[in-house]
């Protein structure tokens, strides 16, 4: 087992950033930690890297505590807000990272792999946002680590830089490394990860392949008005529904297969007016999944 979280919690004041989280990562997986801002992604990674201590539960990395795993050179990490030492060149900084790693690669190789050979002699404080991200990536991959952790690595990159970055990342994964990255882009998780963990309010909402998560989060919102007396029962019996809300003459429903639901709706013999079908944003999709989860939990409690 690469990473094990066992009932881990972390609280800031009244906010439970991570709430009884349990998860396991296995060797060679590329895992996306997906969730809206404030879902607890960064805190989860901080706990995994030993930057923060859990209030409850245990975190283990390769069977060690996080700090021991880092000292053993088994983890390379790139932080979202990882500042860099300024007034030194990119090459000097990468050399420092190599010197500090127990199983270092050659500096020129690290520079080349991160795509920063051309800017190696530039001062770190003179770089663009995307270039700085690449330098951070170089620091995370300066040695032969078994686990690479990346917190929102493509922040500040344009589309082409993003693609180039993920190509580099994929090479890391192809060498048999375990890669864990946090993102709030569903598309990134879909394109890169073989496993997606959905985090919401510090809890693990879903754990599956990208396709499974996408089906869950790919719900659509259908809204329409009906005239006269509304008979709710047949509406609630429509196929693929995940949520129904009737307020006055307006009905709002969520469906995991909008085409089938709308088709069935007309089959009821009603005349929906102002029909709208819209995709859910990721944020709303999470709310949809959460509501579904909470509804599932409710009868038990």
């Amino acid at each position, binding site marked *: 087992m690469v990473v094990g979280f066992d009932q881990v919690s972390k609280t800031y004041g009244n906010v439970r950033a991570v709430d009884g989280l349990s998860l396991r990562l296995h060797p060679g997986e590329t895992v996306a930690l997906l969730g809206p801002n404030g879902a607890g992604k960064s805190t989860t990674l901080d706990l995994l*890297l*030993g*930057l*923060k*201590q859990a209030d409850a539960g245990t975190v283990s990395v390769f069977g060690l505590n996080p700090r021991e795993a*880092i*000292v053993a*050179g088994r*983890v*390379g*990490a790139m*932080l979202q*807000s*990882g*500042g*860099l*030492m*300024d*007034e*030194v060149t990119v090459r*000097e*900084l990468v*050399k*420092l*990272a190599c*010197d*500090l*790693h*127990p199983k270092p690669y050659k500096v020129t190789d690290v520079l080349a792999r991160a795509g920063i050979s051309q800017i190696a002699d530039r001062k770190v404080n003179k770089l663009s946002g995307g270039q700085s991200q690449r330098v*951070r990536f170089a*620091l995370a991959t300066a040695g032969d680590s078994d686990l690479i952790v990346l917190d929102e690595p493509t922040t500040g990159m344009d589309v082409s830089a993003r693609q180039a970055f993920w190509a580099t990342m994929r090479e890391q994964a192809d060498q048999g490394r375990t890669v864990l990255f946090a993102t709030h882009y569903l598309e990134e998780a879909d394109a890169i990860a073989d496993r997606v963990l959905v985090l919401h309010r510090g809890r693990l909402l879903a754990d599956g392949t990208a396709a499974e998560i996408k089906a869950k989060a790919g719900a659509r919102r259908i809204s329409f008005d009906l005239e006269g007396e509304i008979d709710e029962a047949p509406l609630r019996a429509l196929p693929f529904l995940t949520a129904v809300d009737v307020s006055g003459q307006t009905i709002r429903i969520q469906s995991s297969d909008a085409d089938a639901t709308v088709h069935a709706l007309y089959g009821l013999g009603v005349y929906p007016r102002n029909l709208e079908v819209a995709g859910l944003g990721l944020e709303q999709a999470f709310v949809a999944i959460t509501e579904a989860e909470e509804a599932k939990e409710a009868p038990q409690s």
Partner: protein
Amino acid sequence: MNALIKLELARALRNRKFLFFSVIYPSIIFLLVASQGGTGETVDNSGLSVAAYVMVSMASFGALTAVLMGNSERIAKERESGWVRQLRLTTLPGRGYVLAKTASAAVVSLPSIVVVFLIAASVKHVRLDAWQWLALTGAIWAGSLVFAALGVAIGYLASGDAVRPITMITYFGLSILGGLWWPSSSFPTWLQDIAKWLPTHAYAALGRAIEQSQAPKAQDIAILVVFFALFVGGAAWLYRKDTLKA
């Protein structure tokens, strides 16, 4: 950790402004102040010529500049930028960052001491025995660790816009009140009573005792030791607090 010390040092030596203020500037003040005294004149019954007296003041001042200014602002800035956090993801031990900063500051402070001595000996003809030169260099260099610890403490205490003013007030306050710029014997009595308890005052007194071939006063050594313990303890406490928060 050596890798970080080397890089910190390379960066410090590249920073011309910092080098000017810590290495060249004290020598310039030395020349200006020492030139005001006549050759036969001595300073307040110490038996030391103006040049010898000011030489110790300015060597101490230069070392103080190098270690205090070098540490506080950088640490505060790098704490805020997240570089300190990034370093915690390497094999570097927790204290390694602070030790590397202090070590590189100490390397810069050595030339700031030696340059004042060289100028004093060559331009102002200050003459001392060989052991005195060595002991002076060693005492002023070692004593600067007290202020290096203070710099670390300020770096972990203050953040953002507050670091510079706090550093400046501490730096000028300690330099002037400790008698590094003017002999504290020129102060009013009430101020002298305060000044003699300052670490900078004890620091310069240590150097002057060596120039006078005397044993340093126990009170001065005690003051330096107490302040060193205070600053190191404070820095360690603030460091731990910052690490838990980050």
